[in-house]
């Protein structure tokens, strides 16, 4: 009996730690507001890396610089770390208003990171099963939107990519 309780406690603690690892993304999915962004593929010649397609967000890009795995450009201010992209509505979609280093006090914003040269917000890749790959490629070329849930701390979860 003692052994069962011990194993139960260990498993429970480890499960909690797994949840902590993905807490920001889970929080976004459960408590986030839905925003739509226009998307396109980053590399039209090879949009699929394994089963993931790399998405580009033309309305979130800071500049024209690119990197492996997509990204929203780079700030080029000599610092690296947290980047926050404040958002506003335009034509029914969300677009970037400003790119700042300090967490905004209010309003919808994305919490991103540029430690890896490009600004990454955790919404740059989307899993597509093999049998849906061709359909997704066509969709992205014709114009698609991404549905992203963003919570009050700027954590984002990409929940869908669909036709406009």
């Amino acid at each position, binding site marked *: 009996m003692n052994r069962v309780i011990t194993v139960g406690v*260990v498993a429970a603690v480890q499960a909690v730690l797994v949840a902590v690892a993905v807490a920001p993304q889970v929080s976004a999915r459960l408590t986030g507001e839905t925003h739509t962004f226009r998307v396109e593929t980053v590399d039209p010649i090879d949009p699929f890396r394994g089963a993931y397609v790399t998405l580009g967000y033309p309305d979130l890009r800071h500049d024209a610089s690119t990197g492996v795995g997509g990204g929203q450009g780079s700030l080029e201010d000599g610092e690296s770390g947290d980047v926050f992209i404040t958002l506003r509505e335009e034509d029914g979609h969300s677009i970037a208003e400003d790119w700042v280093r300090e967490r905004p006090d209010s309003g919808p914003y994305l919490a991103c990171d540029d430690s890896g040269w490009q600004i990454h917000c955790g919404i740059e890749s989307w899993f597509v099963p093999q049998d849906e790959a061709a359909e997704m490629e066509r969709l992205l070329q014709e114009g698609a939107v991404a549905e992203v849930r963003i919570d009050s701390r700027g954590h984002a979860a990409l929940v869908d990519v669909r036709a406009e």
Partner: protein
Amino acid sequence: MTTSTAPTDPHDHARDATAVQLAWLRRELADWQAAGIVDGEQVAAISGRYRTVEETRRFSLGRLLLALGAVFVGVGLIWLVAANLDQLPPLLRFVVVASLWLAFLVGGELAVPRLTPGVLGAVRLLAALAFGATIFQAAQSLQVPAYEPLLLGLWSAGTLVHAYATRAVMPLLVGIATGLIWWIWQPLAHAGSGAGAVLTLGTGAVLAVSLAVVHDRRLDTFAFVWRTVGSVLVMVALFAAAIPFTTTDGFEWNPWLVLGLVVAGAAATAGAVLARGTARWEPVGATAVLGFSVLMVLWDTGTDTSTVDLADWAHAAVGVAAYVAVAVGLAALGTLRDNPVITVIAMVALVVFTTFQSFAVFAAIIQGAWLFVVLGLVFLGTGVLFDRARRGITANLEGAES
């Protein structure tokens, strides 16, 4: 007058002794019996009270193969995660990996009475590695950036909980390995520097040694592991501090570095308070090495390798002297605590360090084959002096304790 007795389990009258101690005891008993001091019954009663710690830690090829197999499976699982289980959607992948983790963890622990120690160790190792795979798969499925030191920290915390709850060594090893990488990586993630690395290594050493001292007599195997880890960290920290290229360039204080110092301080205090006898000196010694390492880093003699001036010689000499002292001390500690691994680590570290320092200093003066001769002499000289000093200190310490 009362004598202190070692704690004994009321259901188990055997007392622990190492194989070396038992061999000595049996030789002496034979001698006493021959001299008529004790009779045959008393000899049997005395030697029957002791059991070798070695006998409960038998090393075998079978166990090694099982452990290796477990490591391969575990590493493979994590590799599978990293390479994408292409045909499965993210949620299903997570479910598969999480199921493996729970199967190994729950299955292993509930089957403890039925499994031999070798197989149990292998299953526990798989459980610890599968837990890591679960964390990384969850992160991948939900697109958490994979290069997050926090993920390693969480993996370490989970496996350490497993290790301490079940008093199992395999999860402890995984927990310490991952925890060590996290301990060094997290504070340096945003701004790396030589001084920062020395600080994280040094505080890690203090923490490990203090934990070893706290575990003495309560969890001997755990104490052995922590002490070994602490010794390695002490040698690496001092090595890094003594290199002239380790400077305070780019060093920035951050909350993780401060937290590391606070935790190390608390652990050292706990270790010094809870320790008995000479063990008290171990956390104190580790803290002294940390302090000395910091001073060596702050003593900046410039990184120009084209000239070797008096300051450079002094820096090298002080570094070598300190390293020798710490290495010899660790070697003596290894003998005293019956931990031959520490003695080997100390010797290897000292030889590598001395050769490295000699190369750095002499390379500017001596070239080619002569450099080899000089370095070889340094090697030999170090080994001989080291061995003499180790035996001397051990004899002195054992004399003081008896």
